[in-house]
């Protein structure tokens, strides 16, 4: 048995996994542990480098890069087992067998990472904090993801908001785009600047008004906007009252006396419309 430290990201895991694979250390002999001290790793002289060329399909690397961002500490061991089976276990095509027990698990992790990157792009809410002398605006946001997606999720914001300054703070790492330079910093446990933005009130007006009480579909909404994101969405605390009021509003519509039809207006354009031929030429 040996205990190894996968480090914090795909690159660090890859370096360790590569070495283990070359040494032909089977997954059953490895304990992946974040806190492992380097000295627990056997000394370099102790391993025998296997000269076999170990080929790993690109599709596995793509999968591993994504799964590496998952919050589950077991991801490192899972990835190594799959890698082992592909490179050493004679299962060259494993990556294509999405219904294999371990592949299915990895694919599910991949899916939730991709989904959360997408949700980050959707649910990060910037608040404006000011402008610099040149008029360049500065924004901040607080987001709480389940997975380690800050680096993977940030390029989207750089492209979209290249001409603003902004910081996205999260417990799992922070991203800062200031003066056209991107930097990452360690996570923080709470929102470092929680001043509200006056525009949030206008956004809430919009949310309230775009809702149609006659089509209540709460379940559908919660599938797409899970409750765990609500606490950082300025509009979410309206949901309860909108739902509670909806029945009364619809009953009001259904029992309202219908409006009579007003006479046709005197309007040159309407007059012209009425005189157009039924079937336009070449219709």
């Amino acid at each position: 048995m040996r205990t190894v430290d996968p480090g914090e990201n795909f690159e660090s895991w890859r370096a360790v996994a590569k070495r283990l694979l070359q040494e032909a250390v089977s997954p059953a002999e490895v304990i992946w542990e974040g806190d492992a001290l380097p000295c627990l790793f056997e000394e370099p002289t102790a391993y025998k480098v296997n000269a076999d060329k170990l080929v790993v399909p690109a599709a596995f690397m793509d999968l591993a890069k994504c799964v590496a961002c998952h919050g589950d500490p077991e991801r490192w061991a899972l990835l190594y087992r799959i890698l082992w089976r592909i490179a050493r276990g004679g299962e060259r095509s494993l990556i294509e067998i999405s219904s294999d027990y371990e592949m299915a698990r990895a694919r599910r992790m991949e899916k939730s990472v991709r989904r959360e990157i997408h949700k980050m792009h959707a649910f990060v809410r910037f608040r404006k904090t000011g402008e610099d002398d040149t008029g360049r605006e500065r924004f901040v946001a607080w987001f709480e993801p389940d997975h380690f997606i800050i680096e993977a999720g940030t390029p989207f914001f750089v492209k979209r908001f290249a001409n603003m300054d902004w910081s996205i703070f999260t417990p799992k790492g922070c991203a800062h785009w200031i003066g056209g330079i991107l930097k990452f910093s360690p996570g923080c446990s709470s929102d470092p600047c929680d001043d509200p933005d006056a525009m949030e009130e206008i956004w809430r007006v919009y949310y309230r008004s775009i809702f149609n009480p006659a089509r209540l579909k709460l379940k559908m909404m919660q599938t797409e906007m899970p409750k765990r994101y609500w606490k950082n969405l300025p509009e979410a605390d309206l949901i309860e009252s909108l739902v509670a009021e909806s029945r009364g509003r619809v009953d009001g519509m259904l029992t309202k006396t219908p409006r009579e039809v007003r006479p046709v207006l005197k309007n040159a354009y309407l007059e012209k419309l009425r005189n157009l031929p039924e079937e336009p030429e070449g219709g």
Partner: protein
Amino acid sequence: MDLAEKLAILADAAKYDASCASSGANKRDSRDGKGVGSAGGSGICHSYAPDGRCISLLKILLTNRCIYDCHYCINRRSSNVRRTAFTAEEAVTLTLDFYKRNYIEGLFLSSGIVRSADHTMEQVVQVARTLREQHDFRGYIHLKTIPEASPELIEQAARYADRISINLELPTQVSLDRLAPEKNLARTQQAMGRIKLKLDEAHDRRKNGDRKLRHATGQSTQVIVGADDSTDADFLARSDVLYGTYKMRRVYYSAFSPIPEPSVVLPVKAAPLVREHRLYQADWLMRNYGFSTSEILPAETPNLDLRIDPKLAWALRNRQEFPLDVQTATRGQLVRVPGLGLRNVDRLIAIRRHTRVRLEDLARLRVSLPKVRPFLITADHHPARYLLDSDRLIDRFLPKPVQLDLFDDENR
């Protein structure tokens, strides 16, 4: 009236339009520009209202004043709704303020008809032009156009927008004459035809090297379901034409919804949400699964079964096609199996090259076993013949009796 009050009225006025897409634009971002915005990836839904609809764009009317009298519409001239209008500057600022806070993907702008089609269209185009030219806005813009507006104005709209649309609203002229007397089906389709030519032209120019060309990439439309007595077959036949002849990106089906200002001509009733859902499913099967309209709705049944999805309904009518062996069936056959989606079919085709597919494989792909079991043969499963022949097969799929009430517990 302050901005918040205007927004409350003009968003409320726009919410009956179901269109929400923010995908399919030409790829671009703000790194080589002065402004803000990117587009061209998959659409993003930045929020969801409790009606289950995604909030992707700032969807507003420029004004809800209107000289038309469409009886399903809250903004018709006979309605007593409060009236207001945004200035172009207000609409522009609101879009930018929301966009920079990452609330939205862009703007969906429509308008009541004021004075004339051209006058209205000019106002709408003005907002888009200001966003693009003064503010270098590179986010998504969807503009609603009016079939009677001049082709030049519609083409201007298309140059600033990513998506343009004209709503058909009702599938026959008879219904339009009764419920939307100012609208004309032939004129609408003629305008859609012109737009299609312009979209094709722009597509070719981009393909032939004009990468900088700014132009909409598609058009869409909406029909209202349940306002007239059109059948589902009428709607799907109309959609067939819209997708085929006019190359619509999407046809939206919007359940006729109660409005606070009902018309004597069109009594309000609860929105037919299940019917709307089934039409979307049928539409999806036509566009992505190779089903034809006549397969989904044979001549003798003009309406979709509200109890089960249209693919299952087709399979139950065509049991002679089943069971299929998951190991040997073609892709075209597998996508027709109830419970198998496109992605899982592709996965199964990859898997079966390497191994015999068993029920547990399907379970790990999160396929619903109760749903596929009667229709599929796997290495460890052969459905009982009597099951496929049984008149009671449908009972397996019917939902447990629930009240089809909008406000039932499921929705709480």
